[in-house]
């Protein structure tokens, strides 16, 4: 009856002293979601940064080193010249009229921009585009996917978004009807997935990666978790796989990927393949193969298998995080579902156009024979080989520490070492009211200025502790960073020895 609802309504109004938009009265799903990558430890780091700016000698270190987030250019990784030429020119095409322009920009970049702008309505980046992204950009992305995989790609299956993250939100929003819908997510995982599932009011169904076997993905574990979820009344709708893994860095083998595809087919699950680190592979003998290729190699067509593949401009060797470029390829979708995806994209009108252009150039880069190729290839090789060296350096350094084991970073941008904490340390953490890995990470920050993210932010087997650290500090800086972490660790272990 109206009066009961009215009474309930009154409760939210509070007294005149209680503003209506407080923690008590905002959407509980917003309250419930968490995102540790920019969580409390980062807030603490920013406060310390302020102290350092005010008084450089006030702390036992002279700079904050942000190893909490895969943000390469913030740590001075250089952008790829060709990509910057194209977006700069596309945003200021008046430059193309100037005769001196060829002193400043490569002929390839000029040609590319002219071609792209010609195919964009009104030839400008200042207008809203088609809600899935400009057709010329989607065609270039589709061509790049086709070249990579050897299978056709339809530009209508491409949705360009501000980074890959909005695509994840859109798919999960569309998929999750309520708490009874479950999405399988690897543990440890990139917490976009847990946060997004919480925001949509769904259920996260974890499957544990096997740390003792290089963070391997076991089908038996998938089957076990799926069965348990179904037994408790959850309709499991999708499986998320992050390959290469974040935070774990493992690169799945072909056989593993085939098993995953067959599992999804058997159990009628949507496969969400987060492949944003596809160009960050450091392990000899392993290469990236897309899930799309595996699906097609197994003989599954659009009518047989539903797959979402995600990519981004933020990672790889280009690291253009700030540009917010990304896309999802949605294969095998019912046309009525695609209509819904389009509709959702249209409410925000479109993603940023320079990001669309950037993503299309990433998928269609300079080729051998192009005049800009030598510089492009050199820049790419410099960055990737350095990432590879740094990955090895930090894994080696961490494995040398007491009680620390660290799997190889086969790909992506992170290491995820396991730390074994004494009872004394655990007790100190509990007394301080924080999780044991958060306790360790806070102390690491306070004594060295190095910012990492506690493993609890990603999920881990209960009773184990980890943290995620990027491999991104510059190569000249890396030995010092590793040394600082090591020195802190030894002191910590001594201080809290049982």
């Amino acid at each position, binding site marked *: 009856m109206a009066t009961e609802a009215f009474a309930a309504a009154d409760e939210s109004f509070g007294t005149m002293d209680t503003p209506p938009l407080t923690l008590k009265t*905002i959407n509980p799903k917003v309250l419930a979601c968490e995102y540790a990558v920019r969580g409390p430890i980062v807030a603490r780091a920013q406060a310390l940064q302020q102290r350092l700016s005010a008084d450089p000698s006030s702390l036992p270190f002279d700079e904050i080193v942000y190893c909490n987030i895969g943000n390469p250019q913030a740590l001075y990784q250089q952008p790829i010249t060709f990509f910057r030429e194209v977006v700069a020119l596309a945003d200021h095409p008046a430059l193309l009229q100037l005769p001196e322009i060829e002193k400043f920009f490569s002929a390839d970049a000029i040609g590319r921009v002219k071609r792209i702008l010609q195919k964009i309505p009104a030839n400008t980046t200042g207008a809203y585009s088609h809600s899935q992204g400009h057709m010329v950009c989607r065609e270039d992305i589709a061509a790049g996917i086709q070249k990579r995989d050897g299978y056709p790609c339809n530009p209508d299956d491409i949705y360009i978004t501000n980074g890959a993250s909005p695509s994840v939100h859109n798919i999960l929003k569309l998929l999750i009807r309520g708490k009874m819908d479950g999405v399988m997510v690897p543990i440890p995982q990139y917490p976009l997935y847990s946060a997004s599932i919480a925001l949509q009011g769904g259920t996260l169904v974890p499957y544990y990666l096997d740390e003792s076997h290089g963070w391997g993905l076991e089908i038996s574990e998938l089957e076990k978790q799926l069965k348990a979820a179904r037994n408790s009344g959850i309709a499991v709708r999708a499986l998320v796989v992050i390959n290469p893994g974040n935070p774990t860095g493992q690169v799945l083998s072909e056989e593993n990927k085939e098993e995953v595809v067959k599992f999804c087919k058997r159990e009628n699950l949507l496969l969400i393949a987060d492949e944003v680190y596809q160009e960050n592979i450091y392990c000899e003998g392993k290469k990236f193969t897309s899930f799309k290729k595996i699906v097609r190699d197994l003989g599954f067509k659009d009518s047989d298998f539903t797959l979402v593949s995600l990519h981004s401009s933020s990672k790889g060797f280009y690291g253009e995080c700030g540009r917010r470029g990304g896309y999802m390829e949605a294969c095998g979708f019912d046309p009525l579902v695609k209509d819904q995806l389009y509709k959702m994209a249209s409410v925000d009108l479109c993603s940023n156009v320079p990001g669309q252009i950037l993503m299309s150039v990433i998928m269609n880069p300079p080729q051998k024979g192009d005049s800009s190729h030598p510089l492009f290839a050199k820049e790419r090789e410099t960055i990737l080989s350095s990432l590879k060296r740094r990955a090895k350096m930090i894994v080696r350094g961490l494995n040398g520490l007491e009680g620390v084991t660290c799997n190889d970073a086969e790909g992506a941008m992170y290491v995820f070492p396991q730390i074994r904490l004494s009872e004394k340390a655990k007790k100190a953490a509990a007394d301080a009211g924080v999780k044991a890995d958060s306790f360790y990470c806070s102390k690491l920050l306070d004594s060295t200025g190095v910012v990492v993210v506690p493993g609890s932010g990603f999920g881990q087997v209960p009773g184990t502790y980890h943290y995620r650290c990027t491999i991104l500090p510059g190569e000249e800086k890396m030995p010092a960073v590793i040394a600082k972490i090591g020195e802190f660790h030894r002191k910590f272990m001594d201080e809290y020895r049982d």
Partner: protein
Amino acid sequence: MASGDEKVFHPSKLNENVKKTQYAVRGELYLRAQELLSQGKEIIFTNVGNPHALGQKPLTFSRQVMALVQAPFLIEDQNVRLLFPPDAIARAKQYLSSMPGGIGAYSDSRGIPLIRKQVAEFVERRDGYPSNPENIFLTDGASKGVSQVLQSVIRNEHDGVMVPVPQYPLYSATIQLFGGQLVPYYLQEESGWSLDIDEVQRQYDAARGNGVNVRALVFINPGNPTGQCLSEANLRSLINFAVRNRIVLLADEVYQENIYQDERPFVSARKVMMDMGPPVSTSLELISFHTVSKGPIGECGQRGGYMEFTNIHPETVDQLYKVASISLSPNVGGQVMMGLMVSPPKPGDYSYARYVAEKKEIIDSLRARARIMTDGFNRCKNVTCNFTEGAMYSFPNIHLPKRAIEAAQKAGKAPDVFYCLRLLEETGISTVPGSGFGQKPGTFHLRTTILPPLEKMAGVMATFQKFNDSFMAQYADSPGYGSSQGWSRL
């Protein structure tokens, strides 16, 4: 378990709120226009406030700075002064030094501190009251900020948000996506789309009587699609209403630089609130939205926006920060564009004269087009149109004869959709039917932008009139039916 033949992502197994959501601006009419375009037909797109797509030029200074920020190697070249003026180079250097790692790095999830500060300074200059950068979040367009706020406000299906009718359907779509209830308050077409606070109160009371917890009220000033500019008295009454009923006021002010009359210049909700002094100025919970997509800068494709929190509980701001952080950061190019909009060339700067001239040309042209369009619609049979006082749209009232309504029903279309589809097929003019924005039942409108180039405007209006008058003749109830004066105003 679903059978192997049935897709897991089946239309019958989708989030219900998504299925119910509508966004007409890129809905049926637009999709049909795209189809015709791909068949080679010439289409005049007037469905979206997308200035650059219709030939409005970008402001030169903004694009110069953007190019330099994206390609910093240009600044290192000693010949850069051949291509760029000194103040553009200086501003690019300033922005680059404010972002460690340059435009390619994720920024703070709330935006680059320097640019948030520039926004605060802009607000202070505009309103005469201090503004705190800590209460300003930059977003990927204003739409993103609206979405994040509504997500936090709407807890369940009993929560309601008051929205003007007609409205910009971002609000109806987003409220539906988050499973809340839209509580409409009708603007008064017969008095220039004015806002009547008694109507607001009536709707509020009715909603509460139905068990709806009204949490927030949105107003759009200048209005979209209606273009009306609110008076200070209007804003005061809205503010008092919000304070009295303890609801959050959401001020969509994205068209604040698109003003085409002098009687009611733009005044921000924040200024009016501050002018009212305590207790109102310390208790009203206000969130204000702005964008780079409109105004003379018109940079829709860059996706730059901001929201400013006034008297919002700090813990709530923290939660909004948390939600923003999940998407890491707004795109940095859009942030730079926002900085350039709120902090343009100043008197004495090298680029100032050009900036002023470019801006004036755009606004003068928009003002002229607003007039031409309004007058053009009012010349048509059975069409009445309020003047576009601000924003970018014209929202004429199409008084459809009974036979046209019947024909629409027979075709299975809403009457205004039927009219707009015919208009599109016969003339290539792509509009958005009024039903996409909401309208008083029994009335029909369409929204068109005032953006077709000035030199094309007379031709567009003539084409429209030819179509309309022959449509009206075709569906006339009796011979010689209906001049535009034949309908009494409601």
